[in-house]
């Protein structure tokens, strides 16, 4: 018998899918033949696609959701081993360039059923309301086509679905309902941020985080071993894999693992007719009434661009020319240092404390936008990587530095990067193993971006010092991606509308991080899921009104 490692052969076959809560077990799964024109085929099962699959299935649509990655059972497939767990990341070849080439792979993209949320750090933050009207209210970048109050409602839905553990009251922003679970005990790394923030006279908080502080169904509470970013082997982490997808299966969605979509097929009426995908050794075609692309900010434009056809020679949904443009990572600069007391920062989820001071303070800034920063706890190999890449340490020196691991502390931002069209994803002539063109990812920081992270580095360095840390050093990094299929009010300046529906092809939708017009200074997954929830509800509403099959007209 072939090994069932999840990576060799698809698991979700023969009317069943892996039971994520039990070793070796299965749950029943409805299946649809390729020839059946399902209501929705969704490409990608991450924060956007997985959530939307659940919502649409629960609204009664027939849904097939495909993912290029494996269908894991966390309890038995995840090792406490950083090297082994590289298997969670999207490591297909990509070309990066620009002045500040983005580090890809584990840094920002996952390849699993459940998407990047399988290895994300679980920080679950709401946008600052004004960011939805950044241009009008704060004078930079562009406005979103969605009102913050509507988002507030959907944030609540996601927080409930993920049983977010958060502070009893959150110190920033307008009122939000109580988090479904209480905050976790503070780690020493989190405590460092808290006490040094108090010395700086700024606010701090327990971080709202998607890991359980009390049991939920078959999922136990967090055990604070800190392996979160290489996959949580207990199921305490509330990823798409163990929250939305079990619900989607219950509602008769089909999940296809190890299914790589190469192209969206267009029909004669200007509508998409389905997707070409590779699974279990052969190319297949799934018919669908609607296609949703949810492959994240690189794979989404790649697929849209690669689906160019005679009718849409520049790629699908690209009449604005903006597919692939405005790529925004978030700046992710960190300041690290050494303290006398033992910290053991690998323990517990790394980012248990946070300050959003510079997201909600508009004075004393020489830049637009904001940043949050959180406590840190890199695992040993990742830390060795930081020491090598940021400080060039190697050999004996690296070993000596690694001995200080348990006394290290750090603060790292999630910083807003402003949209620029020249930062983009394009296709190269080189092909990957499937014969699909390899994407080129071009990125350079703008002047505002630089001022932002320089401000952050200065401020955090000061905080590290008053907190008693010495031997400080700075790491430059990026995290999270957005922007390459932005939503907006105007078909000329956006790819999709507020409902994530493409302006050009009414049955083609994009629902993932790429629709962000701006990225704000918080981690994106809660917002991606909130948008997916909204999209699901909007689609159900449009279907009721018979608007799904009609062409959209510009507002």
């Amino acid at each position: 018998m072939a090994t069932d490692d999840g990576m060799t052969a698809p698991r979700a076959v023969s009317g069943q899918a892996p039971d994520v809560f039990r070793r070796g077990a299965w749950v029943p799964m409805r299946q649809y033949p390729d020839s059946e024109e399902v209501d929705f085929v969704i490409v990608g099962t991450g924060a956007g696609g997985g959530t939307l699959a659940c919502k649409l299935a629960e609204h009664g649509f027939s849904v097939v959701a495909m993912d290029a990655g494996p269908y894991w059972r966390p309890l038995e497939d995840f090792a406490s081993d950083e090297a082994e767990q590289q298997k969670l990341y999207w490591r297909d070849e990509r070309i990066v360039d620009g002045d500040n080439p983005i580090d890809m792979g584990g840094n920002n993209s996952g390849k699993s059923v459940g998407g990047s949320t399988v290895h994300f750090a679980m920080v679950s933050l709401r946008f600052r309301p004004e960011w939805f009207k950044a241009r009008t209210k704060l004078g930079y970048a562009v406005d979103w086509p969605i009102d913050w109050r509507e988002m507030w409602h959907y944030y609540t839905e996601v927080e409930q679905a993920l049983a977010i553990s958060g502070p009893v009251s959150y110190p920033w922003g307008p009122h939000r309902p109580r988090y479904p679970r209480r905050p976790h005990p503070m780690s020493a790394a989190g405590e460092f941020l808290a006490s040094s923030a108090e010395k700086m006279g700024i606010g701090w908080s327990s971080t709202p985080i998607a890991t359980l502080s009390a049991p939920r169904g078959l999922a136990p509470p967090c055990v604070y071993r800190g392996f979160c970013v290489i996959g949580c082997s207990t199921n305490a982490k509330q990823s798409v894999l163990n929250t939305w997808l079990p619900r989607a299966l219950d509602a008769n969605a089909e999940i296809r693992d190890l299914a790589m979509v190469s192209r969206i097929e267009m029909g004669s009426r200007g509508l998409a007719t389905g997707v070409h995908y590779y699974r279990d050794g052969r190319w297949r075609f799934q018919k669908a009434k609607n296609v949703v692309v949810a492959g994240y900010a690189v794979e989404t434009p790649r697929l849209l661009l690669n689906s160019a056809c005679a009718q849409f020679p520049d790629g699908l949904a690209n009449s604005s020319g903006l597919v692939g443009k405005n790529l925004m990572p978030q700046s992710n600069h960190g300041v690290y240092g050494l303290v006398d007391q033992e910290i053991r920062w690998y323990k517990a989820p790394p980012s248990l404390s946070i300050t959003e001071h510079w997201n909600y303070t508009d004075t004393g800034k020489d830049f637009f936008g904001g940043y949050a920063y959180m406590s840190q706890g890199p695992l040993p190999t990742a830390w060795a990587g930081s020491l090598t890449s940021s400080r060039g340490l190697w050999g004996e020196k690296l070993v000596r530095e690694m001995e200080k691991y348990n006394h290290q502390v750090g603060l790292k931002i999630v910083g807003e990067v402003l949209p620029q069209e020249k930062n983009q994803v394009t296709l190269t002539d080189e092909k990957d193993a499937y014969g699909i063109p390899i994407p080129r990812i071009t990125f350079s920081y703008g002047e505002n971006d630089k001022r932002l992270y320089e401000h952050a580095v200065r401020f955090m360095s000061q905080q590290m010092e008053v907190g008693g840390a010495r031997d400080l050093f700075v790491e430059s990094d990026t995290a999270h991606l957005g922007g390459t299929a932005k939503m907006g009010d105007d078909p000329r300046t956006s790819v999709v509308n507020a409902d994530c529906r493409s302006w050009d092809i009414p049955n083609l939708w994009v629902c993932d991080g790429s629709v962000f017009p701006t990225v704000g200074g918080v981690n994106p997954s809660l917002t991606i899921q909130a948008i997916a929830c909204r999209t699901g509800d909007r689609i159900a509403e449009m279907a009721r009104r018979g608007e799904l099959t009609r062409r959209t007209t510009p507002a």
Partner: protein
Amino acid sequence: MPPDFWRRLTGTRTREPSRALTLTAPDRESIDLASYLPARLRKLDTLPERAAPLDAQTRVEVARGMNRGAGVLAGSVLFDSAIEHYRGGFHNPAMFFPLVSSTLSIIASASGVGDNTPSVRRERHVAYAAAAATGFAGLAFHAYNVGKRTGGFSWTNVFYGAPLGAPAALVLSGLLGVAAERVRDAAPGQRPRLYGMPESRAIAAVTSAGLAGTAAEAALLHFRGAFQDPFMYLPVTIPPVTAAMMAAVAVDGRPRKRPVTRFLLRLTAFLGFAGTGFHIIGVHRNMGGWKNWTQNIQNGPPIPAPPSFTGLALAGLSVLKMLERSRRE
């Protein structure tokens, strides 16, 4: 230490029964609250009419019931503090004190339960008084520990810092134990006073406060657990009602039957044991379940904590017995 410290702590048995039996509240002339309240409180200080002194045998029975309650409380404290302080690595030697003190309180209680004689044992008295003193010291320590954390008395710190409920249970064990000795020791025909009140009222008040406090602790920790299981609402609903009924007993204090209160006390006593059962299941819901018990009994809900309710309810039942037996037929 004042010369009468022990006597004060353990109650004064020499005072005469109060004579202010005629004061009924509210006095006709004192309608305003200012004078009503003192009158009410003064009333607390008195024994109601028609209470008959208890015979020696009843006293022993009541005392033994209270010893049982004090012992269950001390047992709860022993196992709970053993686990919690082990978890804390006994980094401060004072963390052994509650183990020693609760053990002594258990021994004193076992001795009391097995003792059918009306004579008081000085060792028991001392063990119980020491338990109360250790508990008070623990309360102060724990409060200090919570307060000095970053954020002070923030939710996170009261959730995860040193709990106030555990040392309070030791205080209660001590107070009830001391009271048991006082009840046992009264001279025939006498109506002893305790903590400045008639004994039955004093014990009812301690029980009521104890139940309320323990329910508050459960409320805090179950809130921390987000009431993820509906059964987690039980200890924050039933014991507070029982506590209120016991408060009524403390205020009213008349010698009569109280079937509803008795039922609630029994239910509360049962709840204490049931809670342990729920917590055993709760431990299993942590990663690895009971196979990983060495870790999970430290992480999971505290198995020894809920019987505190049982201990207090047993003491409450003794008070009811006392009041029932002192009815004049």
